């Protein structure tokens, strides 16, 4: 190969000697030092051929002017030579004509050295020799410096530097030695291992081009799960680990009966306004509600049953029949609890769901018309508010949320009710993360559940903790058709318990 003949030259040189430095080569071959350095770098990249040790040295070098001194003599010596011997001397203007631009410096240096003198004559000066012969010490010294045979004392060095005859440079150079794989014949380095090399065993003798470990690798083609769905999987796992079974929540259209009335939400509650809830015009009403149960729900609402004074107004079936896009998955929890209530024997149950719910919201950075609700329900005899707090602590700690506090709150279907607040270390404040409570007797007793069964439940959105955990400011960057796939590609695996 050797597109650069210097490469062969360096190797050839090194084959006959133990060690050499690049400056030495440059001097010897009268070659530019940088070109030699380039050749050495090429050799290095071809494998383990030479050992290279980088060094630096302060070098004293003659300037162009200094080199002229060596070849022609110093300005003062040149001037001296131009002055004729004897008392006659030469007129100054004539002398300057002969010696040119450097005459003035030569003049002053020669006078300082006591070689000549200048005598006033009319309007001019006459220059005459004081000595018949002189020794050009500056030329001699510079010649020795160039040959490297002398060390200058400080004062001389300073003077010559001042006269710009020499400079001191830090020179970086390389000391070369043979390496284990030394050869004078370099092959072009291989970029990578090939099946042929493996088969032939050529890899043993080949040189391989060095890898650049400072750059990133190639992005690999991959499929990706959506970040929110990854969080959903994680929540699901946590709830399974805690012994909760998954509810079938695949019914987006729900009757007002199951969405509101079964949950003891009064028929005049603001949540049942068209402002807040999507009503369905096709199919506008549901076609069946279990008759007995509906009558018990009506009685609970109107008051005088189940130890409740109810809401004191007439409960209307027409309201209950209206279909809505479910506003919470608690509608499904109600169906499940009703089913449990219909069984002959009560079986303690823990249920959860994570699915879409709908609100007739105007979209903004934190609100969508649909979001995922996480809901957990425990139905058993002898459970209490302390159990709800305990299960909240357990659930949220598995999501990496350890500091919780509980605020009394109002919810039409839970009493007591608690809003769950978590301390956000980043924001340095308490943020609401969910709602919880015990379902009211007016909701449970009409379902046929025994009087001593209590049901604790909690709910939160899936999006909110995800936004907080992964730092999304705008919910539309996380959910919906406008998400940036680049974001999806880069989203990490979901490890909620890892801080």
């Amino acid at each position, binding site marked *: 190969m050797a597109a650069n003949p210097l490469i062969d030259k360096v190797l050839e040189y090194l084959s006959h000697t133990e060690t050499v430095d690049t400056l030495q080569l440059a001097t010897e071959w009268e070659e530019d030092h940088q070109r030699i350095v380039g050749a050495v770098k090429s050799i290095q990249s071809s494998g383990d051929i030479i050992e290279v040790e980088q060094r630096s040295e302060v070098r004293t070098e003659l300037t162009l002017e200094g080199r002229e001194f060596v070849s022609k003599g110093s300005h003062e010596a040149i001037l001296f030579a131009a002055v004729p011997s004897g008392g006659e001397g030469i007129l100054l203007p004539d002398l300057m004509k002969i010696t040119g631009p450097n005459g003035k410096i030569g003049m002053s240096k020669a006078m300082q050295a006591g070689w000549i003198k200048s005598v006033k004559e009319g309007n001019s000066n006459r220059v005459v020799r004081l000595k018949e012969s002189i020794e050009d010490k500056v030329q001699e010294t510079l010649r020795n410096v160039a040959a490297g045979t002398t060390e200058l004392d400080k004062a001389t060095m300073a003077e010559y530097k001042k006269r710009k005859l020499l400079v001191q440079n830090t020179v970086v150079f390389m000391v070369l030695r043979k390496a284990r794989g030394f050869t004078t014949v370099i092959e072009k380095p291989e970029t990578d291992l090939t099946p042929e090399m493996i088969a032939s065993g050529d890899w043993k003798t080949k040189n391989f081009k060095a890898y650049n470990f400072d750059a990133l690798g190639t992005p690999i083609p991959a499929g990706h799960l959506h970040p929110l769905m990854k969080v959903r999987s994680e929540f699901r796992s946590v709830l399974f680990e805690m012994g909760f079974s998954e509810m079938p929540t695949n019914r987006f259209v729900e009757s007002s009966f199951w969405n509101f009335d079964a949950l003891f939400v009064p028929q005049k509650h603001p949540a049942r306004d068209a402002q807040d809830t999507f009503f369905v015009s096709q199919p506008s009403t549901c076609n069946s509600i279990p008759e007995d149960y509906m009558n018990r729900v009506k009685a609970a609402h109107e008051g005088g049953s189940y130890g409740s004074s109810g809401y004191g107004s007439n409960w209307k079936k027409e309201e209950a029949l209206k279909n809505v896009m479910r506003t919470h998955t608690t509608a499904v929890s109600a169906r499940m609890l009703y089913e449990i209530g219909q069984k002959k024997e009560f079986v303690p149950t823990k249920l959860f769901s994570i699915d879409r719910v709908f609100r007739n919201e105007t979209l903004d950075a934190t609100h969508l018309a649909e979001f995922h609700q996480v809901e957990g329900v425990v139905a058993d005899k002898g459970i209490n508010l*302390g159990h709800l707090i*305990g299960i909240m602590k357990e659930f949220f700690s598995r999501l990496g949320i350890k500091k919780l506090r509980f605020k009394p709150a109002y919810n039409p279907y839970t009493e007591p009710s608690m809003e769950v607040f978590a301390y956000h270390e980043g924001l340095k404040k308490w943020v609401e993360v969910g709602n919880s409570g*015990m379902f009211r007797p007016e909701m449970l007793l009409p379902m046929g559940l025994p009087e001593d069964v209590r049901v604790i439940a909690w709910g939160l959105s899936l999006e909110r903790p995800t936004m907080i955990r992964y730092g999304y400011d705008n919910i539309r960057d996380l959910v919906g058709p*406008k*998400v940036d796939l680049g974001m999806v590609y880069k989203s990490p695996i979901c490890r909620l318990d890892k801080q």
Partner: protein
Amino acid sequence: MPTVSVNRDLLFSKIGKAYSDDEFDKLCFQFGIELDEVAEDDDGVEYKIDIPANRYDLLCVEGIATALAVFTGKIEPPRYTKLTPKVKITTVVSPSTQSIRPYLVTAVLRNVTITPAAYKSLIDLQEKLHHNICRKRTLVAIGVHDLDKLTPPFTYSCEPPEQIKFVPLNLDKEWTNARDLMEFYGSDTHLKPYLHIIKDLPAYPVIRDSSGIVLSLPPIINGDHSKVSTSTRNIFIESTATDLSKAHVVLDTLVAMLSQYCENKGEVEITEVVYENRPVDICPKLFTRNMALDVDTVNETVGISISAGEMVSTLNRMGLSSQVKNSGQISVQIPPTRHDIIHTCDIIEDVAIGFGYENIVPQLPPTSTIAAQNSLNKLSFQLANCVAQAGFTEGLTFSLCSMEDECEKLLQPQATKEPSLVIISNPKSQDFQVARSSLLPGLLKTVQANKGVPLPLKLFEFSDVVHLDSESDTGAKNCRHFCAIYTNKTPGFEVIHGLLDRIMQLLEVKFEDEYSLRAAEDPTYFHGRCAEVIYRNEVIGKMGVLHPKVLSNFGCAMPCSAIEIEIEPFL
């Protein structure tokens, strides 16, 4: 949740103690209200406090201060006294109100001193009540009057608007036709939202005194004549309603608050409302109810163990005067301001709050259960993982979409498509007119929004669509779909086809024996480039190259192939 703005210093003077913002925040949190914001204006520091939606008694500074003063043991719960005068102030309700706004409740307060702060609070409370329990005046509307400027008895009737002549509150001229007033208030941002309640009726509700002076035109505006000011000494309150029980709640709440300003605090004069076809209604009710509480049940429900005596003092701090009865029973007095208490569970919550949620010992429920996955979700998750492993990326799009997305943009004729869709009656945005019946539009929009992302794009989604279904009780049912699309410089039908084969292989479904493709035509797909996917002799979906017009409709420049199939048949 209503938010009440109160002046901090006024609040603290009423509680009888000053707090730092942090201390007050903690106190609110314990009690179940929330210090939402601290603002400062010319009148000093203002607290914005969030109140639970069922606590109408806390919608004013007087109510919050009283509750917190009782809670912190500064005062005893207030008591209210009903005085029966020799001659009760009477309002006669005309049958003409029956079909429009049939109920009225009234009350009188004597010897009140209305300070400017009390006046402001009264106005704010009315506003909050109107907005919340009154459901923007549809259920109940309140009028408060200077009784000394009026001559009882009063009448409440509905009259043709052109007969109602009066000077409305804060206006300087008499209006001779109430209907004109409706036009006038059409540009009033405060009153405009209420006009619809009566605007188009042939007769408007009106309350007059015995000399014919108009007290109010409910639920819109009072008359200027009887307006309350800081010099008012005797007050007449009327509330017209379509919901009588809510009217009583509103009246009790107002009366309880205002009676603080009576010379004898808590003294209220009863009045009567005379109907033609109903018994005379004596109001305000201001009933104090008694409820019995079983100490063991409370302890078991909350998960604490306190004595009857401790429970009584806890309840007293919650404003519920209680006494220990024999055999572990407590008798609880529910004051007329606590209409939110309708069951013993509401009192149990007050015990828990009084005890302090933070003092309840957390414990895990003893409930032992074996968990199970929902089979449809499990299958969807497993398949989603496999499709992602096959190099596709999961999209997450909305379940609601526009009619245009479902029909026009997919080249499906609306006339045949619309009758099969679940339609929303009241969407705030065109984007949410129908529940989607296909996942395809959502993924196409995802492609459209990601033009800068290097090709090919390979997207998928497992999610529910909604179909009409007469078998279901609601008339609609969800259907789990799988949709995938591939877009590149070539349509890549073979990629989508390969993905189908891969899924079938994972589901152990054999080609030809159990699934096959059959050429089909569908307007969404390019002619001759569409096939039905048949599984065990049933069509479960379609796949093919999308029609160029569909691509243009969704702003996609590159060819695209897609598949959409049902998942439930594989369960």
